[in-house]
């Protein structure tokens, strides 16, 4: 319990340092957000008025203190561009990314562990080598390239090779503007739109997990108790599901927690290519517009997710692995 409280305090402190660093970084940047907001023909007085309205004319420590106090009250400020509360902007974008990230993360682990286990079972054989080369190659592919390849396949390719209508997946956007607004048809429409982004994220993630779980599973199969189980005549399915994977699972569960923020960050490109209005696209567009409060809010949110994931991973390990309980 005391350890937990200590870890929590540490996490909060770390988050505060992250927020401060972000604040300092953004204020050190050249480029005046006020000048971007108003017409280029505006006079110097107009720019000064806009700066004053945004609170940018005050000394840095004053800005920091005001921003810090607001943060403690849970206020992330207002977007410079749309004047909406940052929390509202993030609330809109986060579910999109979380939905994409979580569904692909689940598929990633199922597929990755399956491939890794098959490789470990056939270690050194041609299937293992082929899968290793394939997963290393997919892992080396940038997500936006893979996204574009899928877009090309389902637009250019679909027209060229005459895909059947069921296979003509939508390559852009989150929903069909002409589709149903609610209920069942809206859900299926959303799922059809989600297939290509989720496949992209899953393919890359699964390649990494396959590499990792191959090593993990191979380490376990070398242990004596696996030999004993084999000698007792346990079927391969029981052996792998019951004995091997049970032992290889704890680090994989921790990795699952650690992988979530990475998937969220990785979806920057996938959201950009497929035009999904999630956190990634929000971050890129607000960086380009120098919308400091939104950039800061998004960065702190990303960091909070990473710190939370680390905490969850640390706490999950002793629960899953009795050997780690001390």
């Amino acid at each position, binding site marked *: 319990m005391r350890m937990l409280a200590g870890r929590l305090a540490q996490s909060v402190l770390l988050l505060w340092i992250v927020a401060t*660093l972000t604040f300092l970084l953004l204020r050190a940047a050249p480029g005046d957000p006020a000048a971007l907001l108003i017409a280029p023909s505006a006079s110097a007085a107009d720019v000064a008025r806009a700066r004053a309205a945004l609170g940018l004319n005050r000394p840095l420590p004053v800005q920091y203190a005001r921003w810090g106090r607001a943060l403690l009250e849970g206020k992330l400020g207002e977007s410079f561009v749309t004047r909406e509360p940052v929390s509202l902007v993030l609330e809109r974008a986060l579910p999109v990314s979380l939905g994409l990230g979580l569904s692909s993360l689940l598929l990633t682990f199922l597929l990755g562990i399956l491939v890794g286990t098959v490789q470990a079972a056939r270690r050194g054989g041609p299937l293992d080598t082929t899968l290793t080369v394939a997963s290393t190659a997919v892992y080396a592919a940038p997500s936006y390239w893979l996204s574009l390849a899928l*877009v090309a396949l389902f637009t250019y390719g679909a027209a060229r090779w005459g895909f059947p209508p069921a296979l003509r997946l939508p390559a852009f956007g989150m929903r069909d503007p002409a589709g149903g607004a609610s209920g069942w048809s809206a859900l299926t429409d959303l799922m059809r739109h989600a297939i290509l982004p989720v496949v992209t994220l899953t393919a890359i993630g699964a390649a990494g997990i396959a590499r990792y779980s191959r090593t993990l599973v191979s380490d376990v199969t070398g242990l004596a108790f696996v030999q004993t189980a084999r000698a007792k005549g346990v079927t391969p399915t029981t052996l792998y599901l019951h004995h091997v994977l049970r032992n290889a699972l704890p680090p994989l569960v921790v990795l699952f927690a650690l*992988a979530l923020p990475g998937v969220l960050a990785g979806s920057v490109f996938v959201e950009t290519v497929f035009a999904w209005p999630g956190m990634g696209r929000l971050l890129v567009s607000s960086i380009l517009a120098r919308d400091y409060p939104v950039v800061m809010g998004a960065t702190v949110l990303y960091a909070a997710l990473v710190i939370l994931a680390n905490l969850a991973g640390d706490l999950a390990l002793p629960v899953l692995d009795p050997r780690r309980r001390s």
Partner: protein
Amino acid sequence: MPRLPQTTWRVRWAIALLAALVIGAIVVPLVAPTDPRAIGDVLAMRLLPPFARDSAGHVHLLGTDRFGRDLFTRMMLAGRVSLLVGLLGALLAGGAGILVGAVAAWRGGVLDRVAMAIGDALLAIPRLVLLLVFAALWAPGATMVVIVLMATGWMGVARLVRAEVLGVRTQSYVEAAMALGARPGRILWRHVLPNALGAATVAITLGVGSAILLESGLSFLGLGIQPPEPSWGNMIAGGRDAIVTAPWVALSPGVALILTVLACTLLGDALRDRLAGEETITLRARG
């Protein structure tokens, strides 16, 4: 146990691939019949398919982009930038990490705590997000990308080196060197750092692949290398508009990118297996 024959087979492929790419990147733009940056007769030349022959009789191995420039020549020219920026970014990040880690561990105290707190805070932000924030602050270009790669990539190496240095500094041969009156800088350089370099080398080698991926990612988003100077990332971005009608424009530069990152990963893995003596896989931040 790693099987050595297979390892060397992979390493040989990786080295051959990288050598081919480097030679291609140096030679191809020099001997190319058309200027890969100049825009000529756009209407007649744009978006030619692979292996097309233009009116001047030049064959375009991979076709042309939307301005009618030869894709293969541009891809090789882009290789210069991407390889150089990736290599420099990873090396400088590694160098900065070694410096910070070694000095923090050696001096200890407040300096150590502040350096590690900043490192931990930066590690808590996904590297891509951090990279985007950094990249957006200063004018885009190759130098900026290298600096940003350094600024966002030193933390992992710094932690590795710090742990190694802390482990080594209490060894008796270090105490012996101190007793002999060697200056701290000399002890650090001659006795402590060589022991910490193995782990750092592996991290830096694997870092080259990530750095190339991240550079191309930044350039893809328009925050990295700026056209008309080609990089694999901005070439892919440039072909995005034509993805429905001429997908090869966006997709072919990606093949060079994937092969490069693949070769770097294979080399890094082999190096780690050699140094660590066992097969271990670490997941790294992805572009």
